[in-house]
């Protein structure tokens, strides 16, 4: 019997698991596969855009106004203080895994995208944004947007041409260029066919670092700051990043590009490692297939791999993500939540699931579909009864749009911590 059984091991599930395990609760996470951190920017968005599409500088101030305007929004159900604390909690936990994050003293900063857009976000890894970069933006600094020659998943000219026109960068002297890694032996997978992980591994091979640094310096010319696609190591990133700065004497920043996302995988690795070191049990490669609900409580769940065996817990958390992760399912004219068949907010007509234009400013309605909960994040069964020992957190929730609002990370982390605290209170009395 677990104190807390979490279904889904993404950002929300892992954060919730860490918080519970840290309080000594017997906690397990069932995780079906890779989570969406692997497709993410690796920054944690909190609240980036308002409903009228303006960039938000002060996210907490805006979150307060959500409570009035959109009471169904997950942020409206959580005290602002809890949201603040959850961000601090996450930052501290990642720090203890040596993954350092920058935040702009309670305000948003921006991250640079692979095509040179700037997006508001709340937490970024120090190799993506930090005080030094902030300072450099205010001075006439030389910055070079670099890529590895022949790499097909990043085109530095796109970022370069758009950043040149961006007013945030108008003090900088921007150039672009490419780094030749022709010294690599033929036995290595060719750069032309490499993805981000292959290149991250190159950085992790210590003997290559001096040569890579030399080539980076050549490509950087007289720039003091350079950006690279985000591949500076996966497991040993901190050490490698530091060594690279020493070897080159440059400030080096990372820009996320096509998946797999090295920046997101660093967070994933760090959270998993943290959860395990706190005594959490991570059940990988299995999926919750269904659960029994009796007397408004989940009695047990069973999984795809072992349908006869059941998992019992005092509290259950559903953090199975959105459609992409399989937490929500859609079919021909139907949508449902597959584990408990929970009450679900969606439109019955399938032509109401999307907007006419792919890049519509309104985003797409299906992104706000999801499980409906009460103010305590308890969902309802198909008959409309509240399920008392089940919490829903993260992207499985309805009434927020992670892309249009740039709020996905913040909702995941804050709903996770909010539910975890309630579970902790429940267990400890």
């Amino acid at each position, binding site marked *: 019997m677990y104190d807390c059984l979490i279904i889904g091991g993404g950002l929300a599930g892992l954060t919730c698991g860490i918080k519970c395990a840290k309080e000594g609760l017997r906690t397990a996470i069932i995780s079906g596969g890779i989570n*969406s951190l692997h*497709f*993410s*920017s690796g920054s944690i968005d909190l609240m980036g855009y308002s409903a009228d*599409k*303006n*960039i938000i500088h002060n996210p907490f101030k805006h979150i307060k106004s959500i409570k009035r305007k959109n009471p169904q929004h997950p942020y409206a159900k959580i005290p602002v203080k809890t949201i603040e604390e959850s961000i601090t909690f996450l930052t501290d936990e990642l720090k203890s895994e040596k993954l350092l994050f920058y935040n702009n003293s309670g305000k948003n900063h921006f991250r640079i*995208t*692979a*095509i040179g*857009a*700037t*997006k508001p976000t709340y937490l970024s890894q120090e190799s993506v944004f930090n005080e030094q970069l902030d300072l450099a933006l205010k001075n006439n600094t030389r910055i070079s947007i670099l890529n590895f020659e*022949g790499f*097909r*998943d990043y*085109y530095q*000219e*796109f970022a*370069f*041409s*758009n950043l040149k*026109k*961006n*007013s945030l960068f108008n003090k900088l002297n921007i150039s672009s260029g490419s780094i030749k890694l022709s010294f690599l032996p033929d036995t290595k997978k*060719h750069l*032309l*066919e490499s993805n981000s992980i292959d290149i991250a591994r190159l950085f992790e091979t210590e003997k290559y670092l001096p040569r890579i640094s030399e080539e980076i310096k050549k490509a950087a010319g007289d720039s003091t700051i350079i950006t690279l696609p985000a591949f500076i190591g996966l497991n040993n990133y901190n050490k490698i990043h530091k060594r690279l700065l020493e070897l080159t004497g440059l400030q080096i920043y990372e820009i*996320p590009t*096509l*998946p797999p996302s090295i920046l997101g995988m660093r967070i994933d690795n760090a959270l998993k490692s943290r959860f395990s070191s706190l005594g959490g049990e991570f059940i990988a490669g299995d999926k919750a297939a269904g659960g029994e609900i009796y007397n408004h409580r989940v009695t047990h769940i069973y999984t795809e791999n072992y349908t006869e065996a059941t998992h019992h817990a005092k509290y259950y958390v559903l953090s199975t993500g*959105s*459609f*992409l992760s*399989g937490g929500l399912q*859609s*079919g*021909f*004219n139907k949508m449902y939540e597959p584990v408990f068949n929970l009450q679900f907010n969606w439109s019955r007509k*399938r*032509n109401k*699931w*999307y907007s*006419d*234009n*792919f*890049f*519509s*400013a309104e*985003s*797409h309605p*299906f*992104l706000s579909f999801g499980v409906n909960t009460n103010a305590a994040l308890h969902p309802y069964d198909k008959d409309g009864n509240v399920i008392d020992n089940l919490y829903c957190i993260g992207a499985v929730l309805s009434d927020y749009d*992670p*892309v249009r609002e*740039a709020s*996905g990370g913040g909702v995941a982390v804050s709903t996770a911590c909010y539910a975890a605290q309630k579970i902790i209170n429940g267990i400890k009395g």
Partner: protein
Amino acid sequence: MQRYETEVIVIGGGATGTGILRDLSIRGIDATLIEKNDIASGTTGRNHGLLHSGARYAVYDLESAQECIKENKILKKIARHCIEDTGGLFVTLYHDNPKYHDLLLERCKLAGIKASEISPMQAMAIEPNLSSHTLKAVKVPDAVIDPFRLTSSNMIDAVERGAKIFTYTAVNKIITSGNDSVGIECINKKNEKIEIYANIIINAAGIWGQHICEIAGIELKMMPSKGSMLIIDYRTNNIVINRCRPPADGDIVVPGDTVSIIGTTSKEIDYDKIDNCNVDDDEIDTLLKNGEDLLPNIRRTRGLRAYCGIRPLMAVSGKVKGRKISRGIVLIDHKERDGMEGLITIAGGKLMTYRLMAEKTCDLICKKLNRKLKCTTHKLPLPGSEKKIPAKQTIKHFSGIPASTVGSTFYRHGQRVHNILTKDKKNYRLICECELVTEGEIEYAIKNLNVKNITDLRRRTRIGMGPCQGELCAYRAAGLFNEYNSTSPEESLKLLKDFLEERWNGIKPVFWGDGLREIELSYWIYQGLFGLGDFGDSDTEEN
């Protein structure tokens, strides 16, 4: 303003238009083609790609059926690399009227189409996914043709023989002198005016031919009929499956490349809607329902996209409508019909008979120009199909490059594979993993195949046509436009955005299940991660 002179102007870059252009250039007549969009972007590229045996027409329209089987045999020789000789079945299900089966056999015999009855067990052995409710089956020489490759090959041959092509150039005006038409005034995407003068103008604009006649001051009535199709993301069948019943919605499933296509609906639409028509949700319901009757596992298969085309039917006489209108060829000399010398309209027909339509048109042109030149297009293979070479031999020739990569390139481009692949790693690395499109193929298309954007590139190579609908390769393709076509970064990103919007248009009608999941990821990457929607002409601009 640019000004050109030629002997013949061809308006319309579909199969017919490019077919005429090729026929003319083989005969040695100087010609220029004008297309307002890309080649094969109209009805030519918006059908199910069936290489008819003629059996579908045999019962009601013997003449069309006979034309079909004749052209079927010719195309299998001259356009090998555009055709997959799958064969076809006509299947009678238990609630279909079995009399149609007998009628089909009888009429096929009359039309000269080799149709043979096989037992339901034999049919199931050929096509294991076939419905177990199959009562009767007839084997026919149907096959599959790729209209993009076919049109592109006609274009390549014509251009290599000296013809000119202007795509994304629309005809504004027919220039006349007295009662004669002597040229056209066009406008391209950069808003540049182009005047072209010629002895003869061919209106091969298909359904848009009514409009061309209109600007020439001639009334010509087309009867637009919309047909919608649904692509499913697996090749559920390896042989063309026809429902053995009078023509109706959803009576065919055609395999092609890596997918299968359920066809087709038929809805009459107003002429002013021809440029803005979409697949309706009820058409999807109909196609799925009927497709499922033939191949029961279709509904469990992911829908990839849906699209529609407009049949360029002509009302020659009487009140017949929709499917019942003859698919026969209509060749109009406007001198005789309307007293306007120098203008000819070619309409009606179908993809199958494009070559014959071109032949008839060119014969009339020769007659009018007083040139005694014979048609040879029925004997002369298209570029890529010159010799019958097995894929194995080509794969061996390129040893060192993965066989799947060579095989796909050969499948799409025939012998032109030798103009595309080299043993340089950058050349044969994959850009589109779903459809095995290499950087070399993209470079070749950008430089040689009159490609102006990523959607054109898709028509020439199949990039972005696979399960992910361009999730990763679209960004890479935009990068390669920047590299090989010196398209500016801003313009390349605009092409990327347009391409994703174009893909989205076809995905919307089948937006559920895994397709929805795929879109959530694509949207997340391109908007969430990249912020592509933040740039350009869209209303999301914020920077």
